């Protein structure tokens, strides 16, 4: 026992020293470096044409549209809320960037099955297409719950509706989608995708009720 107690004093002093080095000096040094690109270090805030911060370039939160209202948005992947009373509302719930949380539903999960079926029907009705045309990323929840990207297939599916509801031509919308489509990084890393937060801003949409442009 004494041999266990003897190193305790040294252990405390070593821990304190490294707390300063690894817990203060190192992170603050990295923080200082990060000031070179402050915007990206502070979460890549995304502004609309009026200068209001509407979200983050990197974070996807699906826009909510009340029934009957115009829907000029490109929609994102959903998170889903298994505790919701209304299964449709539960299936269509977006993620929360304040504390993102994934669903962790297994491949045989009955709630996930229900969510997938509801999303397929709701999205097919929204876009006026056959349910079989809705791609897999549209009906599944992501890992982060705030995935900013959708597949090019899901973006293409939404082009006719977005064009109709936003008053732009389908070609103009397709052009914007192409501008916000990223191929594989370096040609072979990751998957081709459409960055939706910036795309929705590029459609000329602005945040209603925002009167305080970012300083």
């Amino acid at each position, binding site marked *: 026992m004494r041999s266990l107690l003897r190193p305790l004093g040294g252990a405390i002093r070593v821990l304190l020293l490294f707390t300063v080095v690894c817990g203060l000096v190192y992170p603050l040094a990295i923080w200082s470096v990060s000031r070179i690109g402050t915007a990206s270090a502070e979460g890549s805030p995304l502004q609309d044409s009026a200068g209001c*911060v509407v979200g*983050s370039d990197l974070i996807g939160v699906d826009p909510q549209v009340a029934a009957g209202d115009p829907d000029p948005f490109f929609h994102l992947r959903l998170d889903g809320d298994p505790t919701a009373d209304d299964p449709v509302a539960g299936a269509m719930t977006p993620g929360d960037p304040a504390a993102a949380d994934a669903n962790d539903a297994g491949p045989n*999960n009955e709630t996930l099955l229900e969510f997938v079926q509801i999303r397929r029907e709701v999205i097919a009705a929204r876009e006026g297409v056959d349910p079989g045309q809705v791609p897999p990323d549209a009906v599944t929840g992501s890992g982060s719950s705030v995935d900013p990207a959708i597949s090019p297939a899901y973006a293409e599916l939404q082009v006719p509706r977005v064009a109709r509801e936003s008053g732009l031509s389908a070609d103009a919308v397709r052009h914007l989608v192409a501008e916000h489509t990223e191929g594989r990084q370096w040609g072979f890393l990751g998957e081709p995708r459409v960055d939706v937060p910036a795309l929705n801003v590029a459609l000329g949409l602005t945040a209603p009720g925002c009167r305080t442009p970012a300083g």
Partner: protein
Amino acid sequence: MSPALAAALQLALVVAVLAVLYVPLGDHMARTYTSRTHLRVERIGYRMVRVDPDADQSWKAYAASVLAFTLVSILGLYLLQRVQGVLPLSNGLAGVSPSVAFNTAISFATNTNWQSYVPETTMGHLTQMIGLTVQNFLSASVGMAVAVALIRGIVAVRGGGLGNFWVDLTRGVVRILLPLSIIVAIILLTQGVIMSLHTSFTATGLDGSTSAYALAPVASQEAIKELGTNGGGVLNTNSAHPFENPTPLSNVVEVIALLLIPVCLTRTFGTMVRDRRQGTVLLAVMGALWAAQLAVGLWAESSPHGVAAQAAGAMLEGKEVRFGIPSSVLFAVSTTGTSTGAVNSMHDSYTGLGGGGLLLNMLFGEIAPGGVGSGLFGILVLAVIAVFVGGLLVGRTPEYLGKKIGRREITMAALSILVMPALVLICTAVAVVLPSTSGALGNSGDPGTPGAIHGFSEVLYAFASAANNNGSAFAGITVTNDFFQIALGLAMLLGRLLPIVFILALAGSLAEQTPTPASTGTLPTRGVQFGVLLVGVVILVAALTFFPALALGPIAEALV
């Protein structure tokens, strides 16, 4: 470019970067732990903490230092979490609850980084920095120190100690982990990983709704989180979160970072024992297991299995579009094979076979290629077992690198590999008979249904992750009740410290021996034959121990 070709090129990039760094980093680490000279900054540090850097420690003194340091780390981290409410930079968060603080303190000090909390709403920035980031460094350095002590026991010529724990701990941080972390953190910053001291920013979305976007000092911790095979996310959804892992490039950098040190430590081993092919054999075994797991995972996830997955049309639940399936599986296999436990996709949502492969990757004992330090000492113990089994099979003297594997050595090796299976199986058995467990599962159903089978897998995965100090989860399970907090905490603690004590005892007993030159009766431990034997031992030990448990979980789910 076809998806298959892109995935192959990504793999080639990972392997190529590791190959380029293998010799320089492996030899740099060997120099770090064998050099007799202290850096000036290290000398100042030793003086400040009043440690004699030139004192050689017996295995008992070395082990006592490891235990004392881990104990102090746990207590310090527990206290910090409990009092964070009165400290600055705490985002207005109150002190962490006792059960979460207990579990988290053990989790981060044992290099597990299992998380039973939502960081955004639990841990203030100061706790993240001076508590969790610090343990990310120190627990990793402890792992490397123990591995190096074992190597010193193997190469010791005429007795003597295992080195000095405080020096090994310090050098691991100062000469290896800090420089690499700075490089990786800066690369991650260029990709958009955040590094903020603010709590959040508020935005009014295009639909008029208001959301808070949580911010945190991520880049600094993200780098050591991967390099130290820690895995605890600064944000709740870990490396799936775009603020932790924004691009496919940041993703591949994180994968390389978590594989880097465990892979290169085999070179360090070969260099320190002055026979590099000994290290190459271990690397080949690690690489073969990793590649096999990767092949199975990619195949399993490439087509949907399970009713919900089939309805969706692809295994995309729990995966990010920018990564897709190949980059998600690459991360998942690497993180479970290295005891990291960071995730860029939700393992709970994998197919029965894919998720079962990740579980088996941990049940191998974290040696493909294993955690920082722990992977090397883990596979060295298995090499000792393999030598012993091989010796029994062909009637040769069991010896490893000139040291006889006698009763004491094989006892310590056997005890060290028995700890993890005992913890996993006993804790899982207790958990599944407790009535409270069924309410904690994220996936459940009537007995015998795929949902119920998956629920069992969640429990088995949790204890496999804890006892192996991995930290990833089939995260549908809610582990916040007292039973899980305490049982998982003890599994992490015992799964870390007991093997370390047995391994240091083994090192001590090897150090006492004078090496005997190899004779015709010696089983050669470099070359293909020994590599195959070692793979056989790894698979046999895991299969014999865990087949019944795996049959009730992932195997059953894969077959229904």
